[in-house]
């Protein structure tokens, strides 16, 4: 076990998988010079046939990755969450649907790494957190790493998986440090980040860290929260969540995505259906306000989940 920065952990996962399997390659915009900070040195090590700088044509090269995966390669595509809109057709019509439409003939081991930058004054065009939309559409696995260990372990699993995967890499974690091991992290197994008895908090991506901080502070006030990191949203480990709510009787879901039809909505609705009898109080969603991300720092910070919102949510479940 070594300590790594989130961005390094990603880099390491890519390099290791590229060494292991000559069919793995990576493509994206300006990755040779590592504009987004996670592809440093790959070009040097692997050369031009394994590390491809692409033109500004996301629909084109997202689709090219799909085609390459169909004939045996394992492409990794680097992008930014907000740039996926221009490539939705390839993501939805092809990556998500192809295998099923073709009766299982198509293997699609393609990974889209979507960096998810929000909270830093990038404004509405560069601050999307769109995983809930992809959750609605069957066919793509969705990973939401919450720390360096997840970042490496989930990416390695993604690369080895024969289904298409989108990894949403929360840029707010880029500089965070954490233990990183050599083991893959399986999809669909949530992590109980902290045990507790009074209220379950499920956090998503960067919100796991926030939820843990909130839980630690609430502990001092005598409120014992269990914090869960789902790690993947498709598949979603609902058992771990339901078991926790069975114990605590209360649930808060912290999700940086827009609130309506969010991952928080989904998790809430699962528990309202399958864990209803465990519940002692309303399920509270702490998600982003239903507004675009304003540029102005005075407004932007109001939009996302924060400690205060979590405190009051947890407390309201205990009233």
């Amino acid at each position, binding site marked *: 076990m070594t300590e790594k920065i989130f961005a390094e952990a990603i880099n390491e996962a890519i390099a290791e998988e590229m060494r292991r399997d000559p069919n793995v390659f990576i493509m994206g915009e300006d990755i040779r010079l590592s504009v987004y900070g996670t592809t440093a040195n790959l070009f040097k090590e692997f050369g031009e046939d394994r590390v491809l700088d692409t033109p500004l044509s996301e629909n084109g090269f997202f*689709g090219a990755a799909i085609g390459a995966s169909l004939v045996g390669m394992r492409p990794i595509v680097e992008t930014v969450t907000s740039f996926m809109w221009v490539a939705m057709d390839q993501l939805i019509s092809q990556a998500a649907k192809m295998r099923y439409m*073709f009766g299982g003939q198509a293997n699609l081991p393609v990974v889209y790494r979507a960096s998810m930058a929000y909270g830093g004054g990038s404004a509405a065009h560069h601050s999307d957190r769109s995983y809930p939309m992809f959750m609605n559409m069957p066919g793509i696995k969705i990973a939401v790493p919450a720390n360096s260990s997840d970042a490496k372990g989930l990416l390695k699993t993604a690369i080895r998986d024969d289904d298409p995967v989108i990894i949403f890499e929360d840029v707010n974690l880029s500089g965070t440090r954490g233990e990183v091991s050599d083991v893959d992290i399986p999809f669909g197994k949530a992590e109980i980040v902290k045990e507790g008895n009074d209220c379950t908090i499920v956090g998503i991506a960067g919100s796991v860290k926030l939820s843990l901080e909130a839980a630690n502070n609430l502990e001092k006030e005598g409120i014992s929260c269990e914090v869960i990191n789902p790690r993947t949203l498709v*598949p979603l480990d609902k058992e771990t969540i339901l078991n926790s709510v069975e114990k605590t009787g209360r649930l808060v879901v912290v999700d940086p995505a827009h609130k309506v039809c969010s991952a928080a909505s989904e998790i809430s609705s*699962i528990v309202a259906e399958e864990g209803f009898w465990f519940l002692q109080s309303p399920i509270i969603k702490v998600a982003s306000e239903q507004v675009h991300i304003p540029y102005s720092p005075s407004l932007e910070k109001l939009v996302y989940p924060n400690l205060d919102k979590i405190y009051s949510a947890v407390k309201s479940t205990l009233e």
Partner: protein
Amino acid sequence: MELTKETQIHMLKRMWTIRNFEIKVMEVHKAGEFVGPAHPYIGEEAVAVGVCSALKDTDYIAGNHRSHGHPLAKGGSIKKAMAEIYGKVDGYCNGNGGSMHLADFSVGILGESGIVASSVPVATGAGLASKLRKKDFVSVVFFGDGASNQGACHESMNLASIWKLPVIFVCENNQFAITTSYQDSVAVDNVSDRAPAYNMPGVLVDGQNVEAMHEATAEAVKRARNGDGPTLIEGLTYRFEDHSLGLGRVTKGEYRSQEEIDKWKERDPIDIHTKKLIERGTLSESECKEIENNSIEEIEEAVNFARNSEFPKPENLFDSMWANPIPKP
């Protein structure tokens, strides 16, 4: 250069297979034997057959909603194609796909796409794999005149050109996108006029002439395998039937005249090719007739196969969702 006798005959057979397949599909659709949409390829057979006859089994193709001609031309199983259209478990896709989503990976058919132009980037990616892994295969994509206006075509052609990928872009210009004439929708005279915008050769070919299509493709394949990059081939052709089974209401005669249709029917690709074979003495008239008859029989068998195949079972609903399955949400 004259094509081998074998190729000439092969092409006639394949065109008849497609023609009779489509005639049968229209017949059984009318009889209500299946309900989904289907887009007949009748009149355009020379395009897919000319192209695919210049390919190897290890080469890849991808196509669009007008989907039956491509896999049949590439050598996909006729029975499985028909069973798929019937939604049966013995279809290419176990009934999951239907007419617009035929695919047979075992002979290089990466699949047809109901979303127009959507398979163009995918096929480009197969070409990319060929280059990156230093393979010998080429990748071909069929798309329509309407599709050529989609951004996906632009992006893919540019990618294929800058990376010199072994990709062949085949525009089946049947002159209409449903009811919209390409003259009203494509800003240039011919779709192939756009090739210079991607620094690749663009060739306008008589799409009713299967040998011309073959030759243009053979040339493009040579370039592709040589590492010289992509080619845009435009086969100028005509759809003899309605856009889609079931759309007859709007698509009969209102956007194109009966005269025009009749004029094009005089340029039936099968007739044209048959005449040549007979003139050259490659085949006799009766040998040609025999090919036609054999294909009718073959299609009859396929339909029976499809009719006798089972519908997928409820318990198989989720079967093809994932390579590594996940729990039901």
